[in-house]
């Protein structure tokens, strides 16, 4: 991706943050929840207990003793460690055609990822964003750590 594409994508993301989608699509579900974990959704703060649906534009935030595991609808496995902020910037998946896309932001803390069906079918439709870089995947498990205090 060229620099100008990256900037264009960033701007789309920040507009999305200001004007959330009217009916946010379900991206996945909380499967593991330890310590303090919340979902920030359109100005509300919800406890992220096991079984809570995770929607597009949700912000998953963990406290100092917190950790959370989420399975997305395409079988992507995400988990976040303590003091983390992870944002579902974009997610769409058609379980019949297996078409879809996802973009997950790691603002701070740690995120582990095992990619799912979208990354298998169209790896170019999947990315993970930190404050300074964009990660593309090729059928992958990995960890991202972001030190710093960005919200």
């Amino acid at each position, binding site marked *: 991706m060229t620099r100008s594409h990256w*900037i264009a994508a960033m*701007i789309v993301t920040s507009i999305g943050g200001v004007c959330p989608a009217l009916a946010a699509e379900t991206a996945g579900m909380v499967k593991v929840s330890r310590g303090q974990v919340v979902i920030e959704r359109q100005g509300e703060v919800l406890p992220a207990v096991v079984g809570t649906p995770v929607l597009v534009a949700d912000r998953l935030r963990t406290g100092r003793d917190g950790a*959370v595991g*989420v399975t997305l609808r395409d079988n992507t496995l995400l988990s976040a460690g303590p003091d983390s902020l992870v944002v579902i910037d974009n997610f769409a998946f058609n379980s019949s055609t297996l078409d879809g896309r996802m973009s997950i932001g790691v603002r*701070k803390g740690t995120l582990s990822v095992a990619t799912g069906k979208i990354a298998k079918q169209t790896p170019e439709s999947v990315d993970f964003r930190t404050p300074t870089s964009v990660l593309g995947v090729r059928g992958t498990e990995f*960890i991202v750590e972001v030190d710093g205090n960005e919200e």
Partner: protein
Amino acid sequence: MKNKSALALLAALLLGACASERVILLPSADGRPSAVVVRDLDGSELLLDRPYAATVRSLGSNRLYQEGVDQTQSRYAPVLQARPLPPFSFTLYFESGSDRLTPESRAQFARIKHEVTARPAPEVMVIGHTDRVGTRADNDALSMQRAQTMRDLLVAEGLLGGKIEVAGRGERELLVPTADEVDEARNRRVEVSIR
């Protein structure tokens, strides 16, 4: 709106410059080769393509190195221990032209039930398939019927009805590729995917 976006971008760039970041490639669960491409703001790319290959970056420096297995496991224990269980799939087979399960497949129910009840907040997806005997349209209908039959059987076993999704893919996704009108038992199946 444009100004706000530009400000948000600037803020991201400034804050980004203070952050230190690390990316570590883990071995894939199936042992197949995998890789992560890390792209910088300036467009430069870095490829991690061996297990525990890692990069750490802060204030413009960008170092590629090999992370230790034990160090990864201990340093990232909290995030690794919070990973959800990997999804698990069963494949069950049907008698020719019908939505009746073979006796061997019927016998798998106990294992499916165990897999579902062992999971926190389980979700089940049932996908029906057919062989190539009959028309495409008939097979679309039959594959859906098989998936619905499977769901009804799972519900009868006491598994959560509302959380079982069904789909039919007809003869589009053959397990064993065949010519048209070939009676192939291994293609008459449903996948029960549990996550």
